[in-house]
């Protein structure tokens, strides 16, 4: 059941063309949120009031900061041409919100081809509230738990296997050192260095923006943790060969060969062949 709904919601969140899509989503969204509220509201007082308060706080934040693009009820807004102005967030799950808002990608400064990582606008509580609100709209991937993001229990062998997964699935876009790479039309695969384990896993789970989804069904949570372990191991390793020159491969190496190597050696050549100081008038020197 969970898989099925996730599939439907994921399909809905993908790009739409039908003019009936928006109202349909709106109805589904309203039903889902209403239903969820109905299911949760009358339950056990202590927990649920807490949850309900968080969701309410999230809803308020959402209305102020997100609804101008994603719609008042997160149903998404279409452009005149039928494209997505802001996609529907119903069924994207808490993980997507935690990733997008927690890494500062959302709210976007302006609509563009890609949301860039920046300083988060919201604090942790607010992100949690937003995530709880969006999660309440429809089932989707949850934020990974502490245990899931902790990679300290993995053996070296498992970390090495993570490296294999990384080179097979990730390096094509994110580069061998996780420094990022170019995508068509001005988009970019962002660098993976300095990103928390939680956000790495969330990105794989939810496939933000152009990134494909790597669902647990194929690339299991353990596989994902192995990848994270490999990345963290790389971050903890020293630069064995000196300064890394950006870790973007032969292009920067070539640049340094010319600037530092040829530049420096031509400078040395100029010094070697330059005239030393001379005494102009012999009479003065004595």
């Amino acid at each position, binding site marked *: 059941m969970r898989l099925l709904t996730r599939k439907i919601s994921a399909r809905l969140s993908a790009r739409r063309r039908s003019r009936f899509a928006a109202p349909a989503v709106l109805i589904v969204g309203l039903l889902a949120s209403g239903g969820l509220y109905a299911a949760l509201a009358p339950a056990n007082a202590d927990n649920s009031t807490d949850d309900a308060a968080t969701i309410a706080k999230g809803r308020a934040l959402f209305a102020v900061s997100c609804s101008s693009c994603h719609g008042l009820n997160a149903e998404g807004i279409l452009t005149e041409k039928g494209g997505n102005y802001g996609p529907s967030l119903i069924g994207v799950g808490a993980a997507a919100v935690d990733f997008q808002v927690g890494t500062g990608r959302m709210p976007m400064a302006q609509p563009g081809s890609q949301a860039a990582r920046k300083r988060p606008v919201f604090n942790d509580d607010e992100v949690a509230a937003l995530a709880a609100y969006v999660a309440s709209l429809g089932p989707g991937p949850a934020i990974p738990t502490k245990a899931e993001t902790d990679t300290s229990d993995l053996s070296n062998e498992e970390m090495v296997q993570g490296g294999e997964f990384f080179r097979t*699935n990730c390096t094509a*876009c994110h580069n061998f050192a996780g420094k990022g790479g170019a*995508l*068509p039309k001005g*988009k970019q695969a962002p660098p993976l260095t300095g990103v928390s384990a939680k956000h790495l896993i969330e990105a794989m789970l939810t*496939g933000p923006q*152009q990134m494909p989804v790597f*669902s647990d069904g194929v690339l299991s949570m353990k596989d994902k943790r192995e990848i994270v372990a490999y990345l963290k191991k790389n971050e903890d390793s020293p*630069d064995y060969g*000196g300064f890394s020159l950006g870790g973007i491969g032969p292009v920067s190496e070539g640049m340094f060969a010319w600037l530092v190597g040829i530049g420096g050696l031509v400078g040395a050549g100029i010094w070697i062949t330059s005239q030393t100081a001379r005494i102009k008038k012999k009479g003065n020197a004595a």
Partner: protein
Amino acid sequence: MSAHDDHTPAVIEEPIANPGLPEHLPRPTDVDEAAAKRAERQVATLFGLSSVFAVLFCVAYFTLNIGDDPTVFLGLGASTVGLGACLGAALMCIGIGAIQWSRKLMSDHEIVEYRHPAASSEEDRAEAVASLMTGIEDSGIGRRPLVRNSLLGAMGFLGLPAIVALRDLGPLPGDKLAHTVWKKGMQVVQDVDGARIKPSDMEVGQLVNAEPAVFFPEGDQEAEYEGTALLQAKAKAAVILVRMNPDDLRNKRSANWGVEGILCFSKICTHVGCPISLWEQQTHHLLCPCHQSTFDLADAGKVVFGPAGRHLPQLPLAVDEEGYLIATSDFHEPVGPSYWERG
């Protein structure tokens, strides 16, 4: 111009005559003994420093660890940095010292040396040509064309063994490039761990880097492909699975080769053969990181940008009794870069 053929152009000393070498001016070290002593000390200090760095290199070699537990300095591998810095400094000091020595202390009088034309003298050349002619005449090569021509022929035929002997550099291609290990019923499994895939495991927007199941023997099964054979098979058989919204697929035939919007394409670029898996889930474009050929997977792998000349080959999919994704045949066309007899 023709008047000076084969000779050095001499007349450039107009409109101003060559004033001749300028007067030599002494350096401070030439006239001031104290300055010369100072320069000498400077050079000797540099040479001395070089020895110090050479010794430091040895110290670094034995004290800075590599291997399991490398010594780290400012987040850098201390051994490489230390050895490089010491070696570089030792060499630099010798170099700078030697050059200071030549600049400050060695004689700096410019010397004039006269050139000679590259050609030999007329007499020498005439003599050489005459000797050559005598030799050729003696051999009778001009008078006996039969000898000359048969020798030329023999030399030409010696080329054959030279070429033929290289025949065993490799086998002939035959039709090997036209086939891969895919065949009807072979499961499509995830690369690295060989996990089998059900359509329901994949979400819309999902990408799986996949391989034929034959590369991942189960249990104690003998591996069919190992080592070089495995790499050769992988180099053609690697595929990607993507799941798109079936409504987004613009090519009917291509969509029919998939299962519920899951399509399988060759991972080998049709340009020069890089493996491609840089897939944008919203535009459905697949970009090659080597030369940026871009293929539209929603439109049967058509080329939409870049230097590739052909669409990406698609592998027809089905689901077996257990519900796992399988291929229904090999690729219907050769995968990877073009070649002459590809058709």
